[in-house]
């Protein structure tokens, strides 16, 4: 199923516990390894010691927001593919996220297939334009 030999590891960052747990379970049943973080700060701490293949992050969060995380990662020249999963409807924020190099922008609630396809596309090739984000 996956082009890469090792099982990829996905980081999920969302301050909402219910959403975080649900995403974790979905990725788990789909054969992915994932780690969940309640804040962007906790993720950044883990990033120092752990290898991740992809990030799924919320935008509105207490402390560092999803946008700030993107800025930070860009500054740190980290090229991990990032999927933004948010319920905010603000086009400016969306444009900003994509401008900062997000792989795609998905709206909550998101269908399982769409999310998994986006993950697959993001990890299959960091440069391939895939997912709804770039197509719209």
């Amino acid at each position, binding site marked *: 199923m996956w082009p890469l030999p090792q099982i990829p590891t996905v980081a999920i960052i969302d301050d909402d516990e*219910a959403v975080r747990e649900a995403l974790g*379970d979905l990725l788990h049943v789909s054969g992915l390894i994932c780690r969940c973080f309640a804040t962007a700060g906790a993720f950044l701490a883990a990033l120092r010691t752990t290898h991740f293949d992809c990030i799924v992050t919320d935008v509105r969060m207490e402390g560092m927001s999803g946008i700030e995380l993107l800025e930070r990662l860009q500054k740190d020249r980290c090229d991990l593919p990032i999927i933004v*999963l948010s319920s*905010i409807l603000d086009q400016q924020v969306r444009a900003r996220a994509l401008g900062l190099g997000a792989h795609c922008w998905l709206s909550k609630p*998101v269908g399982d297939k769409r999310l998994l396809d986006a993950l697959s596309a993001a990890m299959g090739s960091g440069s391939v334009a895939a997912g709804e984000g770039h197509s719209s």
Partner: protein
Amino acid sequence: MASPASDEMSLAELASESTVLFDEDGRVRYWNPAAERLFGWPALSVEGVQVTRLAASSRQEASAWAALLQEGFWRGVLKRRSRDGHVVEVQARRLVRFEDSGELRDVVEFAAPTSGHRPTSIDPIDAPDQMMAASWEIDVAPCESILADIEGERAGDPDGRHAALYQEIVEKALIVRVNKRTARLVGGNRTREIMAGQRVAAFWPLASRSALGELIVEALRSEAGRSVFRGLPTDGILRDPVVTAWRADSERPTHVFISVEGVADDDRSYLYLKASEARYRKLIHYMPVALLQVDASHMGKIYAGLRAQGVVDFDGYLQEHPELIDLAGRSVPVTDVNRRAVELLGGQGPHDLIRPVGHLFAISPATLRRVMVGRFSGRTSHSEFMKVRALDGRVLDVRFSVTYPEPLTELDTTIFSLEDMTDRVRMEAQLRQLQADYSHAARVSMLGELTSSIAHEVNQPLAAIMTNAETSLRWLARDVPDVTKVTQLTARIAASARRADEIVQRIRGMASKRAPETVSLTLNEIVQQSLLFVKHEIETRSIRVATSCARNLPRVMGDRVQLQQVVVNLLINAAQAMEGVDEAERLLTIETMADAEGSSVLTLRDRGPGIPAEHLSRIFDGFFTTKDEGMGIGLAICRSIVAAHGGTISAANVSAGGAEFRVELPAAEVAPRWT
């Protein structure tokens, strides 16, 4: 008395010659004050009486009457029985008057005493009121058992019990009718028609009730036609009055006539007195407040009895004995009403309202109970708002007041007043509706500012539900479905659905249009609930919130949604005020406390730029706004909501920077205006 020509009658009232009108059959139709003096019979005791029954010799009278009808005129000497049992000899002239149609109209008789007989005289130039005795016809039928008691103890009165029994006779005996002078002397604002049917005691001075009772007993014991009399002490109404009593004819065995003679006990002239009385009567009558006089004297006695039995908690007693309230409603009569009362309660005239008070309290029975409790506890008055159903079925909102009689005064009368508040209540209801509409509009506009927060908040559980459901399907699609995992996910779906439901309920409560509902609550609850609305708004702006809620905050009565609206509004304003402030500096301080008067106080302080001094006095005014998209109704609505709760709201700048809003709400005893 039926009067064919009242002008003629009033002229005859003034005549010093005895003037009597008879109908065709010789029955008395009119009997002037001079006739009262000459023969001693008050007019009301002879009305309708056959002329022959008044004559010393009925045969002689019959022939004189026959001659009159034949000739149309008669002149001669008449011998007529007087009230005191003597015979009065008079020189009389009789004249038959005819209608235009030729039918007999009436017979006029003029009479003057023959020389040698002079009536008990008052100066003839006196005004007629003083020539006329104050006469009463009373019915002692309700005193039957008391009279029997007195007769049973006729032999003697060892323990002085009779005085009380005599008094009781006057308290039970009813007025059949009275003449004008009686109505003028003791009727107060009441006409003769209104006095009829009421208790004698309601009009007879307290000091001489016992003496009157004794005289009544004496008259009843005397043979027919004999009268008994006695002088009474000056009583503030008449000087040295003489009261005479005699039994009515055998057709009315329980009726007694009473005639009181004396000069009005007042130094002022008759005309002055009459004018001042007329003024007083007019004042009461035209008072713009509905006034009803009621006679609750018998209830006073019942209360005294209960007090003697040791009843202290009368309210409690009435809860156990509602029959006493029924009794009051049935047995306490209205004895007089003014014009406004008739207007307000919709009767044809005072007569429609001269009835037991019960109907006034038909739809507000608790008021009657409180009226009774007020009297029992010796208060001088009681007042409250109540609903009353008018005679024509309209339901009115009135301010009802009762003034209780002062203890030991002569006339035991209670006054009810009813002030129509229907229009005011209706207007207040409309204003409240307007305020509710207005605050609803403001809430909706406020929710508009929170749209993105709300969308985010609702989407979170929805996202969790969708993902969990799809994950469950994936587990179920496996060769060996993982039931444990699916059970866990389904439980999470249910929990998220509940969360979404709570959010929707909260928003719906804020968005819906509904009547305010007063409940007991604390400001702390309101603060916690309001923070839920703006949680995301505050979090995404990285505003820190420091909350300090006082324990044991007094409860306030209020509408939860409206108070939440106030706090949410202040929170949004504070969050927006800090937009230009460095993130690290964004702090919102919320504090609740109780002040010395027991009011609950909420203060909300931001670290924004504060309120420009020139705006401070205007920020609660309607349509005052500094925001580009604001309507400027938020704070105006906050103020009107807080005011409706009996509280105050104020704004100030704090020296350390930022604005502080302060809301103060009174403790629970003070209910908001709509209750």
